[in-house]
């Protein structure tokens, strides 16, 4: 099972290494991790996507809560949150193929951010699944380079992760 955790932490030096150290030390898996400051500048929000069973994710939550700078941990409920990743993808693209690739971008909602003689670069902000679809579509053209952020996630509707 995949789990998405939202973690509010003190915005201090060393907190990220504390958290990531805890994961690696205890053999917990990190599929992706993203961190950024929240509306309150003293608080950062870490989004971790992890895999495991109910026991494992419960252990992760408890160990996170035990870290002193962790203010709050919330396990987001499948289907009740929005998640996004940002990807920049540079594809090999001779002039003849340019139109095809632009068409793919249009269909998927990706943005063309750079075009050169033999390459084209797309920007895409979507769920991990849709990003997978786009990369699959582009694979046959020859993917040169991919840069992507970790997943960030937010509850739908009224629910929120605040102090």
């Amino acid at each position, binding site marked *: 099972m995949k789990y998405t955790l939202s973690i509010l932490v003190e915005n201090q030096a*060393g907190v990220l290494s504390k958290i990531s*150290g805890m994961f690696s030390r205890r053999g917990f898996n990190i599929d992706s991790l993203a961190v950024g400051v929240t509306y309150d500048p003293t608080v950062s929000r870490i989004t971790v996507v992890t895999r495991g069973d109910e026991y494992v994710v*419960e252990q992760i939550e408890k*160990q996170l*809560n*035990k870290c*002193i*700078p962790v203010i709050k941990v919330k396990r987001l409920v499948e289907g009740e949150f929005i998640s996004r990743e940002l990807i920049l993808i540079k594809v090999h693209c001779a002039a003849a193929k340019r139109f095809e690739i632009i068409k793919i971008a249009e269909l998927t909602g990706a943005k063309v951010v750079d075009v050169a003689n033999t390459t084209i670069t797309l920007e895409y902000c979507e769920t991990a699944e849709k990003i997978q679809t786009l990369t699959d579509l582009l694979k046959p053209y020859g993917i040169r380079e991919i840069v992507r952020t970790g997943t960030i996630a937010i509850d739908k509707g009224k629910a929120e992760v605040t102090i």
Partner: protein
Amino acid sequence: MISGADIMVKCLQAEGIDVVFGYPGATICPFYDSLYDSDIKHILVRQEQNAAHAASGYARAKMKPGVCIATSGPGATNLITGIATAYMDSIPIIAITGQVRSDLLGSDSFQEADITGACEPFTKHSYLVKKTEDLPRVFKEAFHIASTGRPGPVLIDIPMDIQTNEIESFEYPDSVNIRSYKPNTKGHTVQVKRAVEMIKKAKRPIIVSGGGVLSSGAKLKLRKFAEMTQIPVLSTMMGIGVMPSDHPLYLGMLGTHGRQCANEALHSTDLAIVCGARLGDRAIAAPNQMEKRAKIIHIDIDPAEIGKNVKVDIPIVGDMNNVLKSFIEEIDGFKINDEWDEKVKDLKAHFQSKISTFDGYVEPRTLIGKLSSMLKAKAILCADVGQNQIWCANNFRIREGRFFTTGGMGTMGYSIPAAIGAKLGLKKRDVVVVCGDGSFQMSLNELSTIKQNHLNIKIIVMRNYRLGMVRELQDNNYNGRHAATILNEEPDIVALSKAYGIDSVEVSSNEDAEKYISRIVDNDEPFVLVCRVHPDTPSIL
């Protein structure tokens, strides 16, 4: 104006610290210079690791954080084993380390070590102080974090310039507010009610108590609850001392090196009430079998321990004092049935261990049993690690005293420095060390500290010329191939002790050992009693 170093001393005074343990060096010199003028007693240990162990012994004796100090780089890294030991044993200590000047940090300067980074897995929390102004808050928080919730070590790393910088004035905060740290001490009312109902329905309940009962100061409540209900009590190694050893309801230590009757009782129970114990692998070797056999109520201040090693039916997060108080109020005269009572008595009688002896040697288990009655009721026994520890755990008859050992980390060399800390914490108590010849040699340098500070600590060395516990493991699992466990050509420990100015004799019979013990218990001098123990003496039975 006041310097950071002076502030550090004032913070310790504000926390009521009268003794600290440490070892100086360049980057902590400003602090030492301030300490020199203060009324805080500094005990110079002979290796930093022992400063941390001594702080641990002090903390356990005084029931409040102990303080250890080291310089940057090698001084700080020497502390690590001691800090890690306190972490695994859940003992509150404050480790203060000097650090290179802030402007040199990160440049691999002389004696620079990233000690907060290195200690990350072994500290409850740590600080690298950036501003002199932060010192009072950092100290206040450190003491608070170390001593509340599940106790543990907190490290404060202080660059030299932070110690020398001066600020306007000193004011110690009178309260702490850490929004991300609010341990839950109350114990959920509904869960407590459910637990009480489950206890009332149980046919063969048992209490498993751990170090948490001692560190929360709830041992009398636990005893009261057990006596009211007649529920028998087992303890983990860290929990030894929750009940007097001869209490009719006490069955002894459980686990791989525990008492058979304790393990048998655990096998027969239908409800284990686990109090302040984490049920590590030495205590419960096969957790899933236990889950199948019995229901489990687990009470702990650390939510992360509940359900980690063993699946639990009713988790209760809270301070043992509060939870036991509710149990006592709500148990309504419940008592265990006669059948279980009989069975427990049977187990206790049936598994009386018969001890075989070797002529010309001290029988350590008998001696330790005897030692208990020769000491004052409140004596503190510090046991090291190895067979000597198991002999003590199973045979020292605790009355109102304490038993200090490292059950969580199992760090050889713990007992002597821990005894130093305990003695400085509680000067009137008898403090006795039992260690092995291997473990003795890991901290024998502290004889020098004992001598210099005139500490009345009696040390009993169980000399079997072996790393006995590992040797036993090799006998059982490695075809008796004694790889690196033989300590032949060992130094003459009597002469060695005398060289440190501490009187010592070697004995090879229980009779002689007892004679010397009765001669030394009431005098004020330290003493090293070396007991020749046959190498084949087993850990248990």
